[in-house]
């Protein structure tokens, strides 16, 4: 069971990492577009069409598919509540990526919050 838990956690880390790449590529593609001022449905669909012709969006899509495949394997073995809670480790990856790749700035509260999430994942896994 202990070996099983480690493998499941490793697979969840892989999906989290893929999700982080997915979000980074998506965010980078969206930042390169100008969003229409109006918040209507037509504007949204036009925006999505402009997104879909960006190669970065397709890279993001590839990472989503890899992430989904690993995630389905995880879900066939682990409880949903455990897998979903442990999947919050993507916060750690997103915090690091936001800081070092997107160069967003944030203070100590953000790091404290991330540390609490790490503690939570340990508790959830100790079960």
């Amino acid at each position, binding site marked *: 069971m202990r070996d099983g838990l480690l493998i499941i956690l490793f697979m969840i880390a892989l999906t989290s990492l893929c999700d982080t790449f997915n979000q980074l590529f998506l965010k980078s593609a969206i930042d390169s577009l100008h969003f229409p001022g109006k918040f209507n449905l037509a504007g949204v669909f036009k925006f999505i069409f402009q997104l879909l012709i960006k190669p970065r969006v397709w890279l993001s899509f590839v990472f989503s598919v890899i992430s989904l495949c690993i995630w389905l394997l995880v879900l066939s073995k682990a409880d949903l509540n455990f897998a979903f809670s442990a999947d919050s480790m993507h916060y750690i990856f997103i915090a690091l990526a936001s800081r070092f790749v997107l160069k967003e700035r*944030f203070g100590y509260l953000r790091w404290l919050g991330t540390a609490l999430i790490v503690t939570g994942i340990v508790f*959830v896994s100790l079960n």
Partner: protein
Amino acid sequence: MFKKKVTLKILLLLFASDILETAIHFFFKKGALTRAEFAVTDLASAAVFLKAVFSSPFLWAGLLTVVAVFIIWSTVLSRIDLSVAVPIASFSYILVPVVSVIFLHEQISVLRWAGILFILAGVILVSLSSKERIAESK
């Protein structure tokens, strides 16, 4: 660079994405459960497993919901920073365990609930640190 402030409309979109996000994981779990007894030991058996799971209607219901969430996220992320949007869209950390207990009959120990609360507390702190950034940039 901070973009625009979080409006009520964006907040509502994020809460809608919480509920849809919970639905996604419920559907995927139901899809994966259709082949729970299948032993995956290598890439070949993983491919067989995935092929079987991808024929489950639950999986496709989940994927449709993913598209809905993608549309919501594309809109939200063009308006606010990733580090602001992600924390607010996190109430699914409570919703998913609740759905797991009610609909999937999973059991959650006290220690695990404690862990879930730690994660949620962490998420709220991360949100507060985003608010701090908004105040600073004014």
